């Protein structure tokens, strides 16, 4: 071998060896993993322990491949659980007791059991933020009852419940995005000491042999602990206050007649003003635009009159739900709207004085609501046989 060749041969051999000796270091064959689609965290009967539930999709029954003609009647998912002091410990024991590695990259949601949520979720969040397989865009939910029950609820149309819940959330987001809270959003609310977080509540409903899931209301978290709930109506108020309603309908009642209004757009603007003592007052301008969907009653009334009336009652209705929501959060002393952080952002000097007292200020915070509504149209018809 001549000298000129030596470096070249060495380089080639090194490259080859590097390639081979890496031994496919990070390789994960698909048939050695179990794909986790949902994670639930509950309080265990024994004090101080948590029960981690994972929902694992069974590829054979989900995917289209494999033998054709095989009758798929079994469940397309498995629910595994482990009890430990922490999430990490529970994940470890789940991993050791299984033939396949847990694969959490495709996890869709994390569900906290109600009682566990009331105990506090800060430690779980800490672990979830650190764990490398956990993603920031997972949806967070609170289960009414326990999380295992929700994860083990078969859905009629979806093979894997977690995927179904993911779609439910996306459907709900068509109405308002307050129904979707990701890990990142939850964490950023929890980090901000003055704010509180609102996480959607999911419930498993069992009726005879049928079971279904339902998302109603929000759970309010403060200082890493669930402190109360918002009803569905109050949730609407929350969405109105944030100006985060994309579609949906508003039922209004004039006392005698009623109507369904389709919400086309909604905006809100928050402003903080201060009295001479330096106490804040929040002004919220809400602007809603509607289209008439259905009129119930209103016999013989002229159209202009009806529209004027509708405008007024719509504003009243919105005001009512918003106030109901605001009152509830004041009762819970949970600033889910982020009024505190608004003051922090726009009046940072004044906030210094308020910051320490916000807990005391919020329950008696004054709110001035200014609600503008506009009826954009009357649907496909302008003259109804009912109106004059």
């Amino acid at each position, binding site marked *: *071998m*001549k000298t000129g*060749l030596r470096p*070249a*041969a060495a380089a080639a051999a090194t490259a080859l060896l590097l*390639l*081979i000796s*890496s*031994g*496919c270091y*990070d*390789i*994960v*064959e*698909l*048939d050695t*993993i179990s*794909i986790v*689609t949902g994670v639930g965290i509950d309080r265990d009967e024994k004090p101080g322990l948590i029960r981690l539930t994972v929902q694992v*999709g069974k*590829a*054979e*029954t*989900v*995917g*289209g*491949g*494999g*033998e054709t003609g095989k009758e798929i009647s079994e469940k397309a998912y498995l629910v595994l659980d482990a009890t430990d002091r922490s999430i990490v410990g529970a994940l470890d024991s789940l991993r050791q007791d299984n033939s396949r590695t847990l*694969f959490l*990259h*495709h996890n*869709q949601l994390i569900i906290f059991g109600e009682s566990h949520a009331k105990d506090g979720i800060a430690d779980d969040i800490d672990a979830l933020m650190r764990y490398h397989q956990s*993603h920031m865009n997972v949806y967070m939910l609170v289960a009414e009852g326990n999380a295992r029950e929700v994860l083990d609820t078969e859905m009629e149309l979806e093979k*894997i419940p977690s*995927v179904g819940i993911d779609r439910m959330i996306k459907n709900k987001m068509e109405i308002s995005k307050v129904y979707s809270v990701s890990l990142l959003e939850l964490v950023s609310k929890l980090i901000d000491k003055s704010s509180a977080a609102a996480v959607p509540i999911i419930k498993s409903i069992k009726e005879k042999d049928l079971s279904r899931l339902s998302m109603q209301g929000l759970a309010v978290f403060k200082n890493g602990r669930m402190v109360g709930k918002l009803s569905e109506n109050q949730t609407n108020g929350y969405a109105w206050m944030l100006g985060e309603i994309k579609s949906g309908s508003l039922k209004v009642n004039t006392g005698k007649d009623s109507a369904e209004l389709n919400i086309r757009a909604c905006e809100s603007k928050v402003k903080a003003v201060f009295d001479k003592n330096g106490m804040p007052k929040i002004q919220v301008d809400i602007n809603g635009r509607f289209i008439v969907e259905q009129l119930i009653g209103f016999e013989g009334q002229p159209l202009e009159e009806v529209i004027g009336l509708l405008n007024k009652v719509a504003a009243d209705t919105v005001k009512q739900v918003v106030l109901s929501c605001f009152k509830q959060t004041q009762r819970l002393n949970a600033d889910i709207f982020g009024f505190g952080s608004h003051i922090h952002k726009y009046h940072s000097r004044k906030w210094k004085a308020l910051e320490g007292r916000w807990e005391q200020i919020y329950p008696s915070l004054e709110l001035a609501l200014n609600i503008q509504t506009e009826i954009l149209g009357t649907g496909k018809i302008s003259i109804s046989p009912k109106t004059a």
Partner: protein
Amino acid sequence: MFRFIYNKLKYYWLINSDMETAGEQGLDQSREEPKDSVLTGNLSADLEIIREIVGTSPDIKVHEFRYGQNSEIKGALVFVDGLVNSTVIIDGILKPLKLYKEFSDYQSQSITKSLDTVKQTIICAGEITEKHTAGEIVESCLSGDTAFLSDGFDKALVISSKGWEKREITEPQTEAVVRGPREGFTENFRTNTALLRRRIRSPKLRMENFTIGNKTVTNVCLAYIEGVADPGIVATARARLKSIDTDSIIDSGYIEQYIEDNPFSIFPTIGNSEKPDVVAAKVLEGRVAIIVDGTPFVLTAPLLFVESFQSSEDYYIRPFFASIVRMLRYIAFFLTIAAPAIFIALTTFHQELIPTTLLFTISAAREGTPFPAFLEAFILILSFEILREAGVRLPRPVGQAISIVGALIMGEAAVSAGLVGAPMVIAIALTAVAGFVVPEQLDSASIIRIILLFLASSLGALGIAIGLLGVLNHIASLKSFGMPYCAFMTFHHNMQDSYIRMPLWSMLKRPKGIASGDITRRAAVKPPPSPTYSSPSGSG
């Protein structure tokens, strides 16, 4: 083994140093010259010399006859049976000689003069030359000419009488088009030069003849348009053709391998085409064409990487769809080299990048397959290459049956038996089909595909990145006849014809670098005139 590699490398260095010098000075060729004995003038002695050179091949005919006023002069024709047109021999040579009876002053004339008579007055043929040596005579005869020798003349007349069986001009098998000319080159040298000449009538179209190969003595023609083709490229081509030292040229592929810039690259740097319209278009862009006797494949140089994605049809159809199709070819090329690698990288390293529902589908197909994903892909690629190779070699009538059994039945059976997963089959099939979209790079793509697959299966997406970077690096380093292989691919160049095909009326200049001198196609950008309607005289 290292010794072997070392020898190869030494050859590589040698080639490189050769290439550098070849541009300036053509290498002397040591050609095996036929034995040169000057004709004596004695017919039987001369024929004896010729017989000695050619041996006793039955196809080399020596026809002795008598002619003259009283048939007193002995003459002989030497030709190769099958290479000559017998009409020329009978009607053009034998008949006139035998019927010409005015040899009254024949004997008194000097030898030169009487030979002139025969040449100028008697023989009817397109081209007659005089040859002095037996070697020259034999060489001409072997290329289809007929030699006339006569007693008393120390010269022979070589009469052009080429005429052999040849294939008709047919539609080429390789470069099918929907729209555009259908004729293709043939194995016949003259037909091919004529086909090119017929498309470019300009007198500036130059053709330079070379004969290459000591044993095959193959005609090779270098065609270019003077004033359009870059003189440097023409000179390089000429020098490289001259420097070829070999005993045989069977196909233009031989020439390609002797004169290409990068003999160790998997990428071709000399193009080939079977279609006169393609070659004419390339010559008009300033390239040189190399026509080789005995093959319908004409070489064009320099070849750029973008040319692989151009098809003659791009220019025959309107520019919009042509541009879309061209971009499609780039995508197809990327797919054909990278699809299996990406599939492997995604399914074994980066499962988090696959949408959840798709992951379940792929995962279900993987369930129960015995091999690692990489091996699965490798087996499928290998069996596809086997099928393709078999498909080319198979006799036409059984070809279809075999491809159905091979591709359809085996693929279906392998999936349903659980040996391979269906998504993998789809990925490989896509790869295979996409490869044929860019036929020029079919060979290189097959190799890159396997390299990328190896890299992807050991390093995942990082491996693909390394591999693609390496490929990019490599093609950026290539040159073809002095032109960078990647020319016209970046914003430094005119990209009117690279990723999209601009309208013909907006492509003003020939590709710079390939063409020099007369590089203007059109004077100015001017769309076709807006129509001024003259009322049709027939109607109304």
